[in-house]
Every structure is written in structure tokens, then in C-alpha cells.
């Protein structure tokens, strides 16, 4: 962070981290082995879930036909799968600030395995499910997900409770992106210039989630109460509370032109401490105080064109966000912004998916009156294709290529726009 408190030079590093250590995503062949279903049964284009996959997930990883309890599987069945993406990524960044002025830099990593996931998921008994994901990333292990879910409480599909480290119910999962090399869904993690809040809608949170849904998950609602992940000075147990909600309704139109449509709303109100006791400069757990708010809310729309077995799926998400001025040192007003994304996934045949996403964040009100309104505005497009070479009930592997470009406007008047373009090619496999 610069002396003025504005993060002028950190974003290229963040981008590179995102590029070379992309967010892990799910496709769980353990389910395929258990139920003898190929990945195409649950995934529109893996790892993106289709209607059947969403219903399976919402039912607590159950088909509800008497074959879900662990005692119904052969003793040798182990609910574990692995996913890796050996990949090559090349990034060219223009106007990169350096000690010697602005430069164009190029970086690349040759078929490295930046991260891999151990995906353990399934049922602990009837109507009790779990997900445990230790992920190896940047040379270290982390527990990406760890939760238990009590399903169909009081015999109602509207009463499911998840406890633990979980991803909130986003319009498009940050952990199930089709893209691998881009900067992700920009709107999820964006903050106005200088904000100290580290809240990221796409980050997994410690807390409780209630999910309710009807048959086929045509109508569903989810509410998460959590302690904001990464909060300094937090002692957990909701000392830095946040709440997220999401509700959707889907129309199964069964038309040849449009097979389904979905509308939804979502929002989050989270806090972040602005003062805490420190030791050697590090926040002491449990001392975070003076909580200040970040808020996000938005709408989403989905259209599935053509047959739902080979759909063209368009997703539009529009959101608005604000961070309290108290989260931004020296700010004179709240920082607010608009943004969202348009994503299109086209699967003309089961093995191949072309995808495109346009991400955008536009500042509406800068927290600093002297900052240009467009400072730190971000625009990203991602285009790619994914071809699955083989999918079976045991394993799957796919070739994945994409190109993405992220433009970030200068943080101050006169600062140039920085553009980072990334070419990514990898082999995505899970077993």
C-alpha cells in the first residue's frame, strides 16, 4: 500500500497469484463412482453444475432413493477424489510501475502444478452430508472447505443447515469457474481504493448456512451467517460478523428456443475491524473493535437457450457495493461502485464448451474527493474453450485453453491504465 493508503502497486502481484494459483474448483468423481454416473450428469460443463447437479447438491449429495447412506456402498468405497491442472500461463503486463518507471513485463510458468485439491465429499448417514477439501497451494496446505450439513430437517427440503468453513451461495460459484487463468469474478472481491476491508464474496467463510429449496431446486433461498474470513484481530465466532443471502426462482420453460430461465437476488452486509491491539505489529486475536460495514447487493439472470443437454447458457449479474468511509484511511466519504459480469457458456456437444465472460467494475463514488471517478475501474474479458478428452464414471480429463485481459485504470490522475493479458493452456484432470 502506498503512503496515502492507496494500493497502487499491489494488484499486478495479486493478478499473478490468481493466474498461477487459480481458485480451485470442484468436480467430484467420488460421486460418479458412488452412483455410476458420468460427470455430464451433474455438470453442464464441468465444473459448472446443471439442474440435476444443483438438485443433487441441494439434496445433500443425495439422490434420495435409498442409495445414499454410506452403508449402501461397498466397503471399499472411499469418498475421495483429486483434481490437478498442470498448466502453462504467459502474462504480459503493460505500464507496470517499477522503480525505474513504467515498464512492460512478461512472465510465464511452464506446466507447473500450482495447486491441487483433495475433494472428499458425501454422506455421513441419511440426511447428513459433508465436504472436506484440503488444498495444496503455493507450497502449503490449507483447508479450503470443511463443513457438515444436516439435510431435510423436520422432513422438509426447506430446512437444511450447514456448519463450518463453506462457500456462500453465489450466483456463480467462485470455486466452480469454467475459466482457469483469469482474475476471477472481479465483482466478488472488489473494494474501493484504500479500503482496509478484506471481505471477498468468493472466499469461504466460517459460519452457518441455511438453505431451503423445492423439488428440483426451482425455488431456493440461502442465508449464511459467518465470521468474515481473514479479519485481523478476530477471535472468530462472529466477532467480525457478516451475513449473505441469495434467493432464486427458475422457470423450466421446456421450449426449444429457451429451455429454462432463472432470476435471483443476492446481498451481503459484512464488517471489518478498524482497530485492534498489536504485538510486534501483528493484530492480537480477539482485540478487533470498531467494526465498520461493507455492503453488496445485486441481481442475476440466467437464460438457457436451446436443448438443455447442449445449452447456450447466458448469465448476467449486476451488483452494487459500498465500503464505509471508516474503512478507508483519510477518506472523506463512503466508496461506492457498480459492476458485474456477463458470462456465456456454450456446449454444442458434450465434450466441448466455449466460454466467454466480461467482468466490469466501475466506481460510482470515490472515497477520496481528489481521485478521478474512474480510478481503479476494472474491465476484464475472458474467452476460452475446453475439450474433454475422456469422461467416465471413474475419471475425466480435458484440454483447456483461454485468453484473458484485465485492464485497470490508474489510481490517480495521470496514472496510466495497466493491462495484463494472459494466455493459459492446461490439462485439467480429476479422478
Amino acid at each position, binding site marked *: 500500500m502506498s503512503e496515502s493508503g492507496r494500493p497502487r502497486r499491489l494488484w499486478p502481484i495479486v493478478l499473478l497469484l490468481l493466474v498461477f494459483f487459480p481458485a480451485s474448483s470442484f468436480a467430484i468423481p467420488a460421486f460418479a463412482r458412488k452412483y*455410476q454416473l458420468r460427470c455430464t450428469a451433474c455438470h453442464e460443463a464441468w465444473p459448472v453444475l446443471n439442474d440435476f447437479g444443483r438438485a443433487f447438491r441441494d439434496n445433500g449429495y443425495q439422490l434420495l*432413493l435409498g442409495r445414499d447412506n454410506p452403508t449402501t456402498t461397498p466397503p471399499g468405497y472411499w469418498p475421495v477424489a483429486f483434481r490437478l491442472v498442470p498448466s502453462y500461463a504467459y502474462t504480459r503486463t503493460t505500464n507496470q510501475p517499477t522503480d525505474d518507471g513504467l515498464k512492460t513485463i512478461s512472465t510465464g510458468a511452464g506446466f507447473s502444478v500450482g495447486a491441487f485439491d483433495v475433494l472428499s465429499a458425501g454422506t455421513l448417514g441419511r440426511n447428513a452430508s459433508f465436504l472436506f477439501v484440503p488444498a495444496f497451494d503455493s507450497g502449503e496446505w490449507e483447508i479450503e472447505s470443511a463443513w457438515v450439513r444436516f439435510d431435510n430437517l423436520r422432513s422438509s427440503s426447506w430446512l437444511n443447515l450447514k456448519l463450518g468453513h463453506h462457500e456462500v451461495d453465489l450466483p456463480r460459484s467462485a470455486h466452480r469457474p469454467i475459466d482457469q487463468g483469469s482474475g476471477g469474478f472481479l465483482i466478488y472481491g472488489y473494494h474501493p481504493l484504500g479500503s482496509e476491508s478484506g471481505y471477498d464474496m468468493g472466499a469461504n467463510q466460517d459460519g452457518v448456512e441455511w438453505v431451503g429449496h423445492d423439488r428440483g431446486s426451482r425455488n431456493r433461498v440461502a442465508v449464511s451467517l459467518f465470521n468474515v474470513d481473514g479479519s485481523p484481530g478476530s477471535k472468530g465466532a462472529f466477532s467480525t460478523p457478516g451475513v449473505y443471502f441469495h434467493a432464486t426462482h427458475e422457470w423450466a420453460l421446456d*421450449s426449444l428456443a429457451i429451455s429454462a430461465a432463472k432470476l435471483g437476488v443476492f446481498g451481503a452486509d459484512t464488517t471489518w475491524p478498524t482497530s485492534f491491539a498489536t504485538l510486534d505489529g501483528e493484530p492480537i486475536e480477539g482485540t478487533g473493535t470498531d467494526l465498520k460495514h461493507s455492503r453488496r447487493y445485486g441481481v442475476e439472470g440466467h437464460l438457457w437457450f436451446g436443448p438443455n443437454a447442449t445449452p447456450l447458457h447466458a448469465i448476467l449479474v449486476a451488483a452494487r457495493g459500498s465500503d464505509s468511509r471508516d474503512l478507508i484511511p483519510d477518506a472523506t466519504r463512503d466508496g461506492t461502485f457498480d459492476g458485474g459480469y456477463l458470462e456465456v457458456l456454450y456446449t454444442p456437444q458434450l465434450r466441448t464448451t466455449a466460454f466467454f465472460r466480461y467482468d466490469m467494475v466501475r466506481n460510482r463514488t470515490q472515497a477520496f474527493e481528489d481521485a478521478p471517478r474512474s480510478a481503479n475501474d476494472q474491465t476484464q474479458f475472458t474467452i476460452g474453450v475446453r475439450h474433454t478428452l475422456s469422461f467416465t*464414471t471413474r475419471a475425466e480429463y480435458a484440454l483447456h485453453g483461454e485468453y484473458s485481459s484485465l485492464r485497470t485504470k490508474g489510481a490517480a490522475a495521470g496514472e496510466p491504465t495497466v493491462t495484463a493479458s494472459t494466455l493459459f493452456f492446461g490439462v485439467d484432470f480429476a479422478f
Partner: protein
Amino acid sequence: MKNLSHRLIATAFFVLMATSWTRGASSAAPAPAADATRGKVVYERYCLSCHGEDGDGRGEGGDWIFPRPRDFRQGMFKWRSTPSGALPTVLDLDKTITDGVYGTHMPTWYAIGERSRHDVIAYIQTFSPRWRAEEIPAPIAIPPEPAATGDSIAAGKALFDKLECAKCHGDTGRGDGPSSHDLRDDWGDPIAAADLTAGHFKCGGSPADIYRVFMTGLNGTPMPSYVDSIKPEEAWQLVHYIRSLHTGPDLPDVGPAGRPIH
């Protein structure tokens, strides 16, 4: 210049996809009829791993599933509303696909939508020449169910003994009769006699579903049709007796997605 290139690439991508989609939509005219060509893709996405590329029930998962996935080539289906030996109606197959089959690996495909289900049924009908050679008869008539009473249950028990149901289903209905261990279906695979006390039935748990099984039989299995042996009122008595064998919570429906089953 960069902005322009971004817009050009995005525009090109959308035009490409819109063109592809329009072509696909126009070739599949918006007629309401099910389409086997579309159904083939649905089949490959959802069904092939168990039922196999040739519809022979020998997909890669077929050897690991009991009971085995249906072999579509004979055009023989257990759960029907049509008389014994006949082909099922489209609605019969749609019911099986929509609700799944409790206790087997056949999931509920409610979520994929009616059009996809009907398209895949049209494709399944290409596996057997029977669908081209035979008419599908009308479903059997199911008269209104009389009230279950102690007398009707006792009469049902007497019929259960008279028809020697216990040979397969056992004296207490637990599916452990003396013949139950040697049962095979018409494909030569072992088959279990239904446990009538479990509280769920593969064919559906409603009284009408159970009645229908008595009158239509289960094609390809040792379970015959009793339409020539018993009268409708006797079939209802059997239904009442069968339902009395389950002493736990209320009989559940065959598991629709999203509903718990006790």
C-alpha cells in the same frame, strides 16, 4: 485501440455463438413432438454410463449395479399401466424417469425437464423394433379403491396364501420365501423378491401403484399378472393386506427429488 480489439473479439464471439445456436434451433423446428435426435444427446449425457451405448444395459457402470440397468433392446419394461406383455406408454416411461426407482441406481430425472425426458424416451424407443411393429394398448382401468377394513385385510391375507405369494415374498412378506433365492429375470440376471414390509415399492407406493402391479405383472420378471385370476375387488383386498405389512411410519412415495424418505 485496445478497447476496440476487445469489443471486436467479444462481438465476434457472440456472433459465432448466436449463429451456431440459431442453426441448431432452426433445424429442430419448434414442434411439440419428441425428437429422438435430441434424445440421443440427452441419453449420452445422463443415461449412457449405465444403459450402454447400444441400450443393452451394459454401460461402464452396468456391471457394478444391482439390479442391473434395463436392457432396452427387447422393449420389455417392468412398470407399466398397460396389460401384461405390452409396451408401456410414454407416460409410464416418463413416470419412471421422473421419479426414479427407489432402491436402485435409477435417479429421479425430474430436474432435466419434461422435454428432455420425452426426447430421451423417443431415443430409447429406437433400440427395439417392437416400438415400430406394435401398437401401445390403452392403460388398464383402475376402479376406485374401497375403504380398507379389517375384513378386507383378512381377505387379502387369504388371497396372499391362495395365490402362493409366500413362495417368493415369504410368509411375513419380507421377500424371503423358499423360491426367492433362485429367482432370475428374463435377461438371466438374479432378481430379488420385493420385501413387502419395507414401506417402499419400486413401482410406486400409492395403493393404485400396487394395484396396477397385480393386474399388469412385471414384464421380464417372475411376477405375473393376476388379471385373469382375481377380480378387481380382490386386488384391492391384496393391496390392503400388503400395505398392512408395513408397521413403521406412513408409507412414503417413491422418492421425488427434494423430499426426504423415511
